[in-house]
């Protein structure tokens, strides 16, 4: 099987300007939404409480909201999570309340709303592990169950935000140094600009749709950054090789040739990775949902940016044969055009 029956080099660079304008427009839109809407940060960054509860039958979100609001913990977010029986409740940090007790009080209120009482129950799981937990009991049944809760204090949240930014900075600097060392500064700049543009676009999506930006999404974003840089690296590798081999071509032609000869690999690789991500999106459940979503956007724009943006920027920066071939002036034994040396 062969999907890519390309007869001659596709003139990508002829349309470089158009691609760059499209990129710039998406980038500007992403920045616009980031500024105007902001990211919907998870409580890992902002601090606060999250409870995930499971009802015996479909949950009434409004009723849940009223009973939690009655506790007076400030702005409460209540939404379904995964199925109609699961409800996620988010509470912001609030000065003056004993944060560590919030979860217990909210669960108590939810339980009371189902006319049950909270009891402590000690038991043994089916596997034989002892379990002690708080159970909401109403007439012998368990109308609501606490599946997960999380409390993050303000100091932790701030730290995580700082650490996240540091990690992003470290990745950018590290990759630039490596590329500058391995190739040339123009490529380093081009690769980073192209891939930061991916990162900003992913963030822009999260801002526009107000999807929750959590720590695992941050991990996905950084992983995508490393991953799409590697895409650019593959193309740059080819550009270098083409510069050595085909002396007659100018820069734009060389870049076209490099992109054309890697396009099949680019699409197959990304397709394979995307299959994995799609599988996470389908089977991973709500916890991995945004993680997989961030990866999906990152992979799609990763193809676009490495093919159309990175190489174009390198071209605008005036990448020349001398920049890359200088390192090995004696030439390549494979070079068909190698002539006499004066």
């Amino acid at each position: 099987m062969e999907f890519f029956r390309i007869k001659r080099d596709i003139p990508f660079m002829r349309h470089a300007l158009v691609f760059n304008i499209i990129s710039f427009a998406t980038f500007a839109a992403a920045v616009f939404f980031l500024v105007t809407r902001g990211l919907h940060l998870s409580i890992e960054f902002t601090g606060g409480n999250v409870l995930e509860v499971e009802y015996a039958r479909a949950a009434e979100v409004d009723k849940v909201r009223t009973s939690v609001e009655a506790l007076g913990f400030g702005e409460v977010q209540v939404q379904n999570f995964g199925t109609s029986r699961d409800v996620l409740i988010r509470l912001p940090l609030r000065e003056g309340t004993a944060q560590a007790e919030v979860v217990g009080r909210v669960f108590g209120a939810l339980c009371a709303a189902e006319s049950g009482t909270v009891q402590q129950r000690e038991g043994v799981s089916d596997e034989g592990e002892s379990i002690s937990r708080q159970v909401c009991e109403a007439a012998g049944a368990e109308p609501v169950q606490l599946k997960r809760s999380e409390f993050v204090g303000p100091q932790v949240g701030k730290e995580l935000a700082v650490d996240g930014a540091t990690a992003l900075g470290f990745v950018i600097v590290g990759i630039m140094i490596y590329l500058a060392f391995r190739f040339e500064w123009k490529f380093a700049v081009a690769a980073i600009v192209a891939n930061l543009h991916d990162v900003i676009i992913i963030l822009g999506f999260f801002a526009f749709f107000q999807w929750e930006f959590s720590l695992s999404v941050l991990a996905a974003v950084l992983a995508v950054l490393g991953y799409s840089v590697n895409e650019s690296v593959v193309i740059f590798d080819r550009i270098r090789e083409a510069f050595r081999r085909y002396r007659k071509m100018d820069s734009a032609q060389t870049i076209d040739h490099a992109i054309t000869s890697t396009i099949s690999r680019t699409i197959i690789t990304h397709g394979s990775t995307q299959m994995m991500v799609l599988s996470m999106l389908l089977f991973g459940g709500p916890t991995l949902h945004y993680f997989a979503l961030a990866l999906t956007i990152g992979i799609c724009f990763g193809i676009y940016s490495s093919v159309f943006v990175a190489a174009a920027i390198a071209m605008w920066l005036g990448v020349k044969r001398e920049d890359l071939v200088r390192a090995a002036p004696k030439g390549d034994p494979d070079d068909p055009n190698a002539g006499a040396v004066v």
Partner: protein
Amino acid sequence: MNRYPWWKYAILAIAVVVGLLYTLPNFFGEAPAVQVSSAKATLKVDADLVPRVEQALKDAAVEADFVQLDGTSVRARFGDTDTQIKAKDAIAQALNPDPADPSYIVALNLLSRSPAWLSSLHALPMYLGLDLRGGVHFLMQVDMKAALTRRAEALTGDLRTLLRDKGVRHAGIVRAGNSIEIRVRDAATLAAARTALAELPDLEWSEAADGDATKLVGNIKPEAARLVQDQALKQNIVTLHNRINELGVAEPVIQQQGADRVVVQLPGVQDTAKAKDIIGRTATLELRLVDDSPEGLAAAAGTAPVPFGAERYVERGGQPLIVKRQVILTGENLTDAQAGFSGDTQEPVVNLTVDAKGARIMRDTSRENIKKRMAILLFEKGKGEVITAPVIQSELGARFQISGRMTTAEANDTALLLRAGSLAAPMEIIEERTIGPSLGAENIAKGFNSVIWGFAAIALFMCVYYMLFGVFSTLALAVNLLLLMALLSMLQATLTLPGIAAIALTLGMAIDANVLINERVREELRAGAAPQAAIHTGYERAWATILDSNITTLIAGVALLAFGSGPVRGFAVVHCLGILTSMFSAVLFSRGLVNLWYGRQKKLKAVSIGTVWRPGAAKPAAQA
């Protein structure tokens, strides 16, 4: 040209065998077990306990798979949960003759079902994070400022004794924040004080004029301060261990994180309220004298200001009490505390035991203060409360008891807090997470399904698109998964849901190397290279690219590892390991397979790598 020397095949074979061996324990699952650990700090669990447990099981006619000593606990594994519960009761009865005062904690637990020979190779199943097994996670911040203040207060007391012993007549010692100020009136005293102060190496002194007198200001030296903080953290961890032992949790994790934080993870516990009751009771204990002088009583009544060197606290009943600032003893000196009944009046009491230093101080203090009251203060989150303020009836030694105005439950409560030791510095919960057991199981299933279906889709595509080379790539990817799992099991790194996501993502990315190789080989074939040469150059040329792209991905992974915390760290560990294993499997292992298959054929006409399409050619040049 496409041949490996025998030793390269040997390395590949060994890697796969080792990988299989260490992945194996993950497939056996877990069996019910009973874990016996010490309930008292004074009692050590050692090999002598094993025969006792065995005997107890034999007497109850319960059969265990094995009974063994594992670190600080004895574990016995059973076939099913019924036997497990029977065994737990039997062991508890045999080891704890008095259920009200247990010497050992007998808890239900899970143990790997893998055979003993695997365990003896240290081949253990992967360590699952709380999000996969359910439990409670706390992150606690130790209040280091309070630890320093307390140290300064203790040093002030030491100074008073020291200067009195040396006969230095100073004009007052006070603590101001974390520094200590001594006022001296004349130069002779100043010189005497200076010599005496050299005996306290933890403090550095500076002089300042203060009216007609001289003020000596002492600050805790930075290295001493660091030591104080270090010890405070260590003591808090030990105390937490003791308190958590009371909960009877099978495998608690109590670890230092950073300079001033402690992580506590309690698998299987769903009940945060109870856990917090015990560990979150971030209490520190101090014994001080009550100021029962007329000024003190007046201050307690609210008619006079609080006297110098004293503080006002509220007793548990609501009565205000004036307590001297000077600390006689802290929780550090307390070695044991038990609830009991007094011999003559049969009322509930708390029996206390203090260490040698504490005993000496207690003796001196109590001798000088008979018929006066001594307050036991409990500090929770910076706020102090007087638990009880008994009257000192006689000279006290290493063992003494508190009696009066207590119910049995209160005596038990007090004893528990005292017994578990007190914290050197208060702690506050700054992060808390609970995960239900059903959610943990769901998360495992979801993560597992994502990996399996993703893998299947990639494998199918690769086999169809690249034919035999696709099969090799798929096998290489399977080896990658195997090695990654083996590595995670070997390192006993904690596997979390983000970690499983990282496995999936790493596999998805790892196939990139094989696609690069296969595309390169096709390209060489397209350019008209002979099959053997095409394979050789294909691998050779792709290698540089693979290295480059993996290094950039690794940079991102390392950054996540260095700066990430919590879920991000779990992701990063797996991601970085996965990149390393993928380099091995995608390049070396797949090459090994190709060499094994094609390497021997001298006159190779075609390779099975799917369609090699040539522009201009009417039909494919080489096909399977």
